[in-house]
């Protein structure tokens, strides 16, 4: 038989919290709850204590195993293959089909609508890598970034009047069709 027992709070943090609340109460932040009198006992915690008044135990026999063992859920019947199929093939378990796949107008590879084409990006990435190699060769060492803009010129190209004062990076090949000079 369980009995409600009031004991002093063993946890210091909880006791501190309760003491703060009690302090607020006493200082009148919650007026009307108490008449201003300090109660005879401090904050306490109600815990469910063990059966302190065991009665009737000596008279009764020992509990049978069927009452003291812990019962757990288990399936009663084998799930048939039809039921299993319904569960496994339910639309929410299947992979959703993507309807945002398109054809890249430049190269004809497949791409997702909101993502860049993989082939075209690889092309641009390779060209950027080669341009950066030329830049590193021109700069010589680390931390030599110039304080002027850069322009990339291919074979047989002359700098225009817009490229005044810019650092020129030469690439030893013909200008690719997708890199428009502006």
């Amino acid at each position: 038989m369980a009995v409600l027992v009031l004991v002093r709070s063993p946890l210091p943090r909880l006791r501190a919290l309760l003491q703060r609340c009690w302090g607020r109460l006493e200082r009148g932040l919650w007026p009307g709850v108490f008449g201003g009198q300090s109660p005879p006992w401090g904050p306490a915690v109600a815990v469910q204590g063990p059966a302190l008044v065991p009665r009737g135990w000596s008279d009764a026999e020992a509990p049978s195993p069927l009452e003291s063992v812990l019962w757990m859920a288990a399936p009663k019947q084998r799930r048939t293959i039809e039921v299993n199929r319904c569960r496994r093939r339910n639309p929410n378990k299947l992979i959703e089909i993507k309807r945002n796949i398109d054809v890249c107008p430049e190269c004809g590879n497949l791409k997702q609508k909101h993502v860049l084409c993989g082939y075209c990006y690889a092309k641009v990435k390779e060209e950027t890598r080669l341009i950066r190699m030329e830049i590193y060769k021109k700069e010589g060492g680390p931390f030599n970034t110039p304080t002027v803009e850069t322009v990339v010129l291919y074979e047989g190209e002359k700098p225009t009047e817009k490229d005044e004062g810019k650092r020129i990076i030469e690439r030893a090949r013909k200008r690719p069709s997708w890199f428009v000079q502006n």
Partner: protein
Amino acid sequence: MRLSVVAAISHGRVYRRFGLSPRSRLDLLRNLVTALVRHERIETPWARADEMRGYAERLIDYAKRGDKDERAMRMADFWLTEKDLVHKLFKVLAPRFQPHPGSYTRLLQIPNRDGLDRAKMAVIELKGNPLPPLVRPRRDSDKTLLNQLLKGYRQDAQRAAAA
């Protein structure tokens, strides 16, 4: 008495968590900003690029104030770990973006990373960079039905105006 559940719910939090600690997150983003200013186009996980974008644009806004400004110089000094990039920021990027009121970066998603994690990757670049363009602006083809009809209409209107 209020037992706050601040730690458990994250409604309205705008900043993502990266790295080992808030300071580590800032260091990570700072490295990315430095790399962006140096190379003008970097490829990184989408979340990091998205987070870094705001910081990079604000840095350029500070740089537009000019290098005589004390706060701008302190910001550039903190955010750019390689000090030759401070010169590039104030002398190259600030004049380049002076006419633009905002949005100095472009963030585009690329196919997922090839490694085991298949991470969502993005490429972030400063506008006006000298590198080859990532996306070519496409004009609508003239051969579509709607464009052919509009062309016919325009020609009819011209003929009617001429006659």
